[in-house]
Structure formats: structure tokens, C-alpha cells
């Protein structure tokens, strides 16, 4: 195991470790800490226009306390976007991680052929940017181009609009599942390969079936890796942005505030209301902090022992 050695001697290096960490800390301050602070600052303020709001000096920033937060939280559209994304995220997470686990177990089974080919093929979508993946699937969904429509018509199903109001969520979930299964599969598969084969031989001698070995030995040993991939996937999925933004030009079924992040983008850059955007960002951050804190505890315990 790659645990940090316990009891690594305190060296007399003095300032050296701080020096080595300085570039990372400087970047962190400028690109994470200061932006967060600036967002909090903006979220407590608002532009005030005096007179007609024209000319220099007529626009002033004032402190408004929690007004922007009140507005953000009482905005029905914001919660509607959360409901949409939560439904989408649950579907994606269950199917994507379920498929990743099944594929990883299949790859690890001794009887499978073409394992290498399948592993590379299933991992391949990881190399396709979300924007390009959305473009490709978007074209596959378009009736004028789609082989999927040809296929559906061949079996007698006609008139399905894969980009319609009722279906576009599923079409988008398919893109995310397609893009994410391979990476998670590889994480789980790598973990499986590191388990000693002796366990399986012992179980086989005791008469256990391959099924029993997979369910009773492999899955329990994968639990830490499953939790880790789940938390990573939750964080990535609730931040969904590229897919709906890229699909919008070819469908009318997605609003400009379909996901919470899209609302922040619209407020900040389309409507130009930075203050609302800042408050909404903070609310999003707080909501995603819940799975995140669990993740931090996990990282500290799993990967590095208790030495953090």
C-alpha cells in the first residue's frame, strides 16, 4: 500500500518544504482563495443608479447585506434547475457507475476474451472532450442525419424526437454516461488487479462460483474505490454545463437556465448582474459542499492513513 510511511523523521530542512510548496500555494491564493473572497464580497453588494443612470458617477456600488442571497434562494427558476439536474444526476450516476462496475468485474474475470480490445474501446470516450461528444451525439440525434432514427423506424417506432422536451434529458444523460463510464471502469479495474489472486484460488477450492467470488470478495474490496469514484462523479455531474450549452443550438427544449451553472453564467455575462451571479455561485458551492466534506474525510483516511 502506498501509505505515507509513519514516523518519517522530522528533517532539519527548515524552510525547504515551504519553498517547494510556494508555487502551488501562490497559484492557489490567486486562482482559488482570492476569487472565493471576491465572490463573497460581490454577493453582499449591488449596483445603485442615481438619476437616469447615465454618465460617470451615477453608478455606485452599495452594501446590501444578504439581499442577493434572499433573491437567489427565493428564485423558483433556480430551484427548478436544481430539480432538473438532480434527476439527471441520479440517473447518470446510477447507470454510469453501475456499468463501470459491471465492465470492471467482467474484464477481471478469467474467462473473458478480447479483454484488451474492450478495455481500450470503453476507455476511449475519455479522450473525447464533452463538447465534441455532445456534437457527435447531437448529430446522431438529429432526424435528418440519425442512424438511430433509421433503426427505430426499421422496428416500427416512428415520430420519436430525441431532442424534444420530454426526451432531451435522457439524450443528454446518455452523452454523460458514454463519456464517463470508461474512466470509472479503469479506476475500478486497476484496483481489482491489485487484489491478490490467492483469495480467488482459495475460494474456488472451497467451491465458490465465479459469481460468488465477484459479489463476496471483489465488490467488498472495491468499496473504497467505489466511494471515491462516486464522490468525484457527483461533483462533476452536478456541475453539468458543457453538454446542455452545446446542445442548445440544435434543440429548443433546453432553457438558458437549464442547470444551476448555466444560470450563473447567464446572470454574470448575459444579463450582466454580477452581484446575483456571485450570490447564486455561493449557494451552489454550499450545496455541493455536502458531498465534498465527506470526500475530504475519505481522502484523509483512505489514502494517507491518519497522518494528515
Amino acid at each position, binding site marked *: 500500500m*502506498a501509505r*505515507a510511511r509513519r514516523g518519517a523523521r522530522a*528533517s532539519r*530542512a527548515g524552510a*525547504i*518544504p515551504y519553498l*517547494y*510548496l510556494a*508555487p*502551488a*500555494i501562490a*497559484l492557489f491564493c*490567486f486562482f*482559488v482563495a482570492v*476569487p*472565493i473572497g*471576491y*465572490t463573497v464580497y460581490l454577493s453582499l453588494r449591488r449596483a445603485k443608479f442615481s438619476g437616469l443612470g447615465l454618465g460617470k458617477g451615477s453608478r455606485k456600488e452599495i452594501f446590501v447585506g444578504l439581499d442577493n442571497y434572499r433573491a437567489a434562494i427565493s428564485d423558483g427558476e433556480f430551484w427548478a434547475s436544481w430539480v432538473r439536474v438532480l434527476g439527471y444526476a441520479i440517473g447518470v450516476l446510477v447507470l454510469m457507475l453501475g456499468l463501470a462496475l459491471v465492465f470492471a468485474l*467482467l474484464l477481471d*474475470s*478469467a*474467462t*473473458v*476474451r*478480447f479483454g484488451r*480490445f*474492450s478495455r481500450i*474501446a*470503453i476507455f476511449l*470516450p475519455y*479522450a*473525447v472532450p464533452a*463538447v*465534441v461528444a455532445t*456534437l457527435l451525439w447531437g*448529430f*446522431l440525434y438529429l432526424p*435528418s*442525419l*440519425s442512424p438511430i432514427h433509421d433503426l427505430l423506424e426499421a422496428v416500427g417506432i416512428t415520430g420519436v424526437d430525441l431532442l424534444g422536451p420530454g426526451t432531451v434529458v435522457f439524450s443528454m444523460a446518455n452523452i454523460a454516461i*458514454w463519456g464517463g*463510464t470508461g*474512466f470509472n471502469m479503469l479506476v475500478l479495474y*486497476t*484496483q481489482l488487479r*491489485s487484489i491478490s489472486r490467492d483469495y480467488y484460488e482459495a475460494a474456488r477450492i472451497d467451491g465458490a462460483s465465479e459469481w460468488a467470488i465477484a459479489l463476496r470478495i471483489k465488490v467488498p474490496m472495491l468499496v473504497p*474505490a467505489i466511494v*471515491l*469514484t462516486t464522490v468525484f462523479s457527483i*461533483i462533476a455531474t452536478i456541475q453539468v454545463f*458543457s453538454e446542455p*450549452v452545446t446542445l442548445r*443550438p440544435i434543440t429548443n427544449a433546453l432553457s438558458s437556465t437549464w442547470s444551476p451553472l448555466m444560470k*450563473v453564467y447567464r446572470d*454574470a455575462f448575459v444579463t450582466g448582474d*454580477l452581484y446575483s451571479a456571485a450570490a447564486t455561485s455561493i449557494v*451552489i*458551492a454550499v450545496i455541493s459542499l455536502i458531498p465534498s466534506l465527506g470526500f*475530504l474525510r475519505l481522502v484523509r483516511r483512505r489514502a494517507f492513513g491518519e497522518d*494528515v
Partner: protein
Amino acid sequence: MRKQRPIGWLPTSLLLLGAFYCLLPVIWVLTAATKSRAELFTSQAFTPGTGLFGNLSDLSAYRDGIFWNWMANTALYAGGGALLATVVSSVAGYALAKYQFPGRGLIFTTLIGGILVPSVVLAVPQYLLLAKLGLADTYWAVLLPSILSPYSIYLARIYASAAIPDALLEAGRIDGASETRLLRVVAFPMMGPGMVTIFLFQFVAIWNNFLLPYIMLADDGKFPLTVGLYTLLVTGANQPALYNLVITGALLSIIPLIALFLTMQRYWRTDLSGGSVKS
């Protein structure tokens, strides 16, 4: 010795089904890119057409070859950003793994916490701050934020603690080697394979990034492929004549990464908790 097992047809066919699903859009774009404008809407999907060279020259001619500009920009962002991120993260990971010092736990937790902050919470104020410095809409606006990668620091710490024996560092110190010499002569060479992995992950992350350049850049001459192809799609949504360009561009944009994948196979290690690293 393990005895020969019979072929499991069910698991094999399930895996091949998964492989087919994953390859389907890639095969589709491969054939669609060879179709001329007329063939795209008339001929059967998955049958090659005759328009590949026409499409390539149309794409190269589109707005004086701006597509190749996007390709070069992406290579610069991903290559430069990943290289700097690898160096910064490896040095930081090495310090966190091999030194005991006050504040170590706090620094690690804080840096790793960066993974958890939603990207949009950072991207908007990052844009505003860089705009104040006059750096918005420059190459720096995309390059600089890409250098910080909490995930890479996390991986670097795992690799450093697994690959570098404490005894070797102690021996070096007893022989009078300076700390910076230990970093160059012991740490970097031993972390080498791990650094390649970090580079690859960060390269793909930057190559695939959309939100950051979408927010930071206004001048389409500085766009990376993802933002460029998106604008091409927006322009082309009402003109099916541009579909060929979008499809051909999409194909060209994934070729470099797929090549990188197939050639660097052995470095795609995803053992997040370091399970398979021998110590």
C-alpha cells in the same frame, strides 16, 4: 499455474457490446467526415463517402484557416499548461510526502479542497480579477489557471510516498547532499513514471476544458478547439451547409488525443489510492 478456463461467452459478448456502444459515435464521425455536403443527408450512415478531401480543404479555407489556429492554441494550452502543472504539482507532492513540518496537514487539505469548489464559482471572479490586471482575453488567462491542479498534487503525493524510500533520502543527507540536489537527483528520476501520468491527465483535462476558455476569451483567434467548434456549431445551426465543417472539425479534434492514448497506454494508471504501486 492457473488451469485453462473455458471461454465465457456471456461476459465476452457483454463487454463487446459495451465496446460497440463506445465506438459507435467515433465510427460514425469517421465515416460522416468523408461525405460531401449532398451525401451527408442522402447516403446511408456508416457508409464512407467521397468528400473527405473536399471537407478538409473547406475546413482549412474557413475564415482563413482559423480551425488550425484553434488546433495550435489547444496544443499550446494543453502542452504548456500540463508541463507547468506537472512540475509545480510534483515538487509540492514531494514536499508533502517526504517532509514533516508545521502546517503540513492544513496545507494539504486546503490545496486538495480546490477539487471541490465548483468551477463556475471560480471562473467568474477569476475572469474579473484577470480583467483588472489586463490579462483577460489573453493566452495567460487560460494558461495560468490551468497550472494549478489539486488532483495532480494529490497524485504526486501518492507517487512520491510510494516511489521514494526514506532511507535513500537519509543516506543522501548523511553523504552531505543538499535538499535541492536530492530533489533533482533522487526525487525527480524516481517519480518519473508518475509525472508522466500526471502530465497526461492534466493534458487531457486542459484539452477538454470548455468553461474556462469560454469565459476568458472573446477573440476567436485565441480560442481552443472546444470553444471554436462550439461557435462553429452555433453559426452552423441554421445553415446545414456548415455541418460538414463541424463534423470534420470534430473528427480532427479527437485524433491527437486518441493517438496519445494508444501510444502512451502503460502510463494510464488510475490507481487513485495507490494500490498497485510496489514499494
